[in-house]
């Protein structure tokens, strides 16, 4: 009897989550998938019809994701290490650093708009300093490269914090003596990072990566606000088809595509970062 309970205990703990998700999420997901496959040709196929646009969307999506996520991860890891230092005012700086966790996508984008718009801080400052006379433009079709830079900055500024909190929470669970042992045996900073810190952080890194990737594929606000109409990613296509073109089928098709890509990536991460047997 006890034995049986013990075997079923884990499933029992997971059940509420599963039930909840099935009740709230399963139906909409099925609905969306259904729409993605209906139409003639199916909406998913229609995506490829404007192949130029499709290519562009994929290009920007990948570009943003492959720059933003590794950057965030790296910054988060270094910041976590940095915040293991004890210094006066550490708590406050830490608080600043995690603040953006609670700043919405859209608000974050607005902040960076304020920084880089033609009457934003940067331009006004440079003009005030006499470095230039006319503003440098960061937004607009012609300046898509610069806009991308601002989007990357904004994303790093805003969403590194959540990666950081996850990794920082993880690093705090690690016995500090493991690092000290590395110090004693002459590891330099990078060796310590590579052989001790990162492997021990694997579970946290995995979690952070999955979460970030999931979200990165769904960023809409900053892209719309900063990039306007001409930087298109998969998530903005969903919104575009949904609200501009009022075509829920193609919107769903894009959504399903986003889903598939993130899901596959998540599985990859889980494979890649499977915590070593010992950890």
């Amino acid at each position: 009897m006890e034995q049986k309970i013990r075997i079923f205990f884990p499933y029992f703990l997971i059940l509420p989550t599963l039930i909840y998700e099935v009740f709230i999420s399963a139906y909409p997901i099925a609905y969306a998938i259904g729409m993605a496959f209906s139409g003639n040709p199916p909406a998913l196929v229609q995506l490829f019809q404007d192949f130029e646009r499709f290519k562009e969307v994929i290009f920007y999506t990948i570009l943003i994701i492959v720059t933003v996520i590794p950057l965030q991860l790296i910054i988060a890891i270094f910041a976590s290490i940095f915040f293991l230092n004890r210094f006066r005012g550490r708590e406050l700086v830490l608080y600043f650093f995690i603040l953006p966790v609670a700043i919405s996508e859209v608000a974050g984008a607005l902040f960076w708009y304020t920084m880089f718009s033609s009457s934003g801080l940067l331009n006004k400052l440079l003009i005030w300093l006499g470095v230039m006379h006319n503003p440098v433009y960061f937004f607009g079709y012609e300046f898509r490269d610069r806009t991308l830079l601002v989007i990357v900055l904004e994303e790093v500024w805003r969403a590194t914090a959540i990666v950081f909190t996850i990794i920082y929470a993880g690093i705090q669970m690690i016995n500090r003596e493991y690092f000290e042992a590395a110090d004693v045996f002459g590891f330099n900073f990078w060796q310590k990072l590579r052989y001790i810190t990162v492997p021990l952080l694997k579970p946290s890194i995995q979690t952070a990566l999955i979460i970030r990737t999931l979200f990165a594929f769904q960023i809409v606000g900053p892209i719309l606000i900063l990039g306007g109409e001409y930087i298109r990613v998969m998530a903005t296509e969903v919104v575009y088809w949904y609200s501009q073109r009022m075509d829920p089928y193609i919107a769903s098709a894009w959504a399903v595509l986003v889903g598939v890509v993130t899901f596959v990536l998540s599985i990859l991460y889980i494979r890649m970062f499977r915590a070593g047997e010992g950890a």
Partner: protein
Amino acid sequence: MRKVLVYLIAFLISLWILTPIIYTVLASFADILDYYQHLIPQKYTLKYYEEYWRLGVGDALVRSIEIGVLTVLLSFLIGIPAGYAIGRLKFRGRNSIQLTILFFRVLPIVVMAVPLAVVFLKIGLYDTIFGVTLAHTAIALPFVVLITSSIFAGVPRDLEEAGTVFGLSSLQIFTKITLPLVAPGLAAAGMFAFLISWNEVVASTILTYLNRTLPAAVLAPYVMGMGAAGQLPDPYRFAAATIMIIPAFLFMAYIRKYLTAMWGSAGVR
């Protein structure tokens, strides 16, 4: 030397984070023409806030906080047991279950919110705080499970075993030993759940129209209305961004202390 470097980095971090916030907040109180002309605005006004206040932003704010906190509570209530099981217990199908839970969150919210709205209308949850909470919890839950499970996995096993030996029930071990040890992780997960709810615009917009959350009230035009409503003029942007961060500041201040464990390093051996 090292100390100097540490303080330098600390300073740069603060600068990096605070500059956009401070400048935007400043701008939100500035007279717009003055703002365009001066690096540091000279004339200030509360006009834009008054306007937002008239639009019911105060209520939306309260609602947003309510929904955010409820979401944290509900998703913790439901999700932490699962996080614990996945992170701590060994059982068959663990990986696939983890993936299944994740699977519920891979589709963009827009396409999920519309069918949900129809259902909510039928069962009377449409345009209610509880309805939005339900949706937000569904969104946050997989992450809560994910984050807490990775944190639970890091708790030294012998600390729990010591609990068992001294007669603590499973629940007592969980609440008195494991939970405090994973405080940083829970803080991270809590922040995350709150953040999801706080920032979520699409579902809130679709599932409500009178009882809007703050982002839905302030920001909906950006996300859902691309063409139709156009974009806000600059001063409203500044004010909107400022309104959005104030509760965030408070929430983070509260939860931050859990992120830094108070008892030094948790690891024992």
